[in-house]
């Protein structure tokens, strides 16, 4: 098969994530195809972030398999996944506040070493985020929340990921900045970056994604294209715990 019907770039089957006795994610199946933007939606505590963290190896996976680009990557340590071009932009931005903007980007491109590929990636990020070029010598801790979010995304893009997992990029940002973040997701999709997005902001998310999964209590409670979900009652049900 070819085109969008080829094997998904990410295929998660029966993923279970448990922190000791607490199971946060139970048997979740997700597929993301190359070039798609897919959202995981759901209420607080539904297991969205745990799913992403499980995929990138930051949360303990106790069951299921994760296939990325036709290879089994279940249980691979985080630092090796980025070399296979899968990375996560974590919730709460988590930029390195004691490093300058440019040093944050350098660390984002750590796997590229110091060659030309690295310089081009930095120039590309400054093109995409002019504000970061202006602030390149500033400590990341002195940036505003929105600028820190841009830096966190730029840092994740530095490694040239095939799949970018974005965890709550609009969290805690002012409304007009939130719009910028969603515009950026549209821009990235135009550049062919495949994105798996976790978001609280359902309405804006459904405007920018192709498909979405609804999570409730750690399980998939529904899925569909953005249009299907906009028209259905599933989203409200998932948020109200009515699934």
């Amino acid at each position, binding site marked *: 098969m070819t085109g969008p019907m080829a094997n998904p770039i990410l295929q998660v089957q029966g993923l279970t994530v448990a922190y000791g006795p607490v199971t946060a994610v139970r048997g979740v199946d997700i597929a993301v195809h190359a070039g798609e933007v897919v959202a995981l939606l759901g209420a607080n505590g539904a297991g969205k972030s745990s799913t992403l963290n499980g995929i*990138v190896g*930051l949360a303990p996976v106790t069951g299921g398999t994760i296939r990325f680009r036709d290879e089994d990557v279940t249980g691979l*340590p*985080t*630092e090796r996944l*980025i*070399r296979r071009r899968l*990375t*996560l932009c*974590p919730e709460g931005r*988590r930029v*390195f*506040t*004691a*490093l300058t903007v440019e*040093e*944050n980007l*350098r*660390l*984002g491109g*750590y*796997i590229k*070493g*110091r060659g030309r590929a690295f310089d081009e990636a930095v120039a590309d990020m400054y093109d995409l985020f002019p504000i970061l070029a202006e602030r390149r010598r500033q400590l990341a*801790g002195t940036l505003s929340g929105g600028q820190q979010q841009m830096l966190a995304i730029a*840092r*994740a893009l530095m*490694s040239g990921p095939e799949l970018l997992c974005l965890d709550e990029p609009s969290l805690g940002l002012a409304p007009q900045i939130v719009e910028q973040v969603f515009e950026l997701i549209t821009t990235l999709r135009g550049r062919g970056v495949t994105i798996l997005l976790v978001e609280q902001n359902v309405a804006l998310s459904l405007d920018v994604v192709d498909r979405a999964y609804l999570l409730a209590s750690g399980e998939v409670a529904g899925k569909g294209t953005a249009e299907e979900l906009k028209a259905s009652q599933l989203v409200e049900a998932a948020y109200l715990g009515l699934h």
Partner: protein
Amino acid sequence: MEFFLQQLFNAVSLGGTYALLALGLAIVFSIMGLINFAHGELMTITGYTLYFCGLAGLPFLMAAPVGIAVAIGAALIMERAAFRPVRNASPATLLVTSFAVAIILQTLFQNLISTRPRPVVLPDFLSGTVEIGGFLIGNNQLLSIIVAVGMMVFLNWFLKNTPVGIAMRGAAEDFSVARLMGVRADAVIAGAFALSGLLAGVAGILWVSQRASVDPFMGFTPVVKAFIASILGGLGSLTGAVAGGLLLGVVEIFLTAYLPESLIEFKEPIGLAFLVCVLLVRPNGLLPARNLHAEKV
């Protein structure tokens, strides 16, 4: 006035060595939350390397880089053999492990080499003096100051300009996110130990060049002093380690120089009381680490 300047020179020379040791402690602590009390034994290992090189007839200037290389190697072996297996354990376990490593090494030095101090042959130029602005300065003290400053400049360059250095600073702030960027935990931790070994080796050479001998417990007192210096400066903060080391050197030298003879035996408690007063005013140290959450990996 001349006496004061002379003492200031002594203070900076001693404080610089404390600062190098405190930097070594701070680098490892900021990455993995371990206060490595076996850091002093790396100094001792350098000292014995100088001693054995002397026996083999190697000149001091060639023995010194060998001593530093051996300290770096020993730091890497220490990490691999002793600290990697307990990396995810509690801070208390890490601390006790470091004491165990220190005591094992001290016992080995006593049983395999000697319980008595061994002489280290120093080159003549170290015992000479130079005259600067009308007062005499020992060459070995001048060397201490130059080397300490040189090491600090190198360390600053390394941490700001090399990929591993930037990765170490990032990992010190948020280890999980550094791993997301592809930074391997083993690589940064080994890098931190190698740097601490380098600093301990250099400090060991400076220490020996003031004393011309090495004994099994040589590293113990300086590492305790360096620990005090890093608490004083702010645990895990590199600039704090330098400030704390220098302040400690100043306090020790000036108390020795200016205390009346009847009080001189109390110089240590008086010095420590002064440092406690500093911590009462600044409980996190002089220049605390900006974001210290030494996270476990």
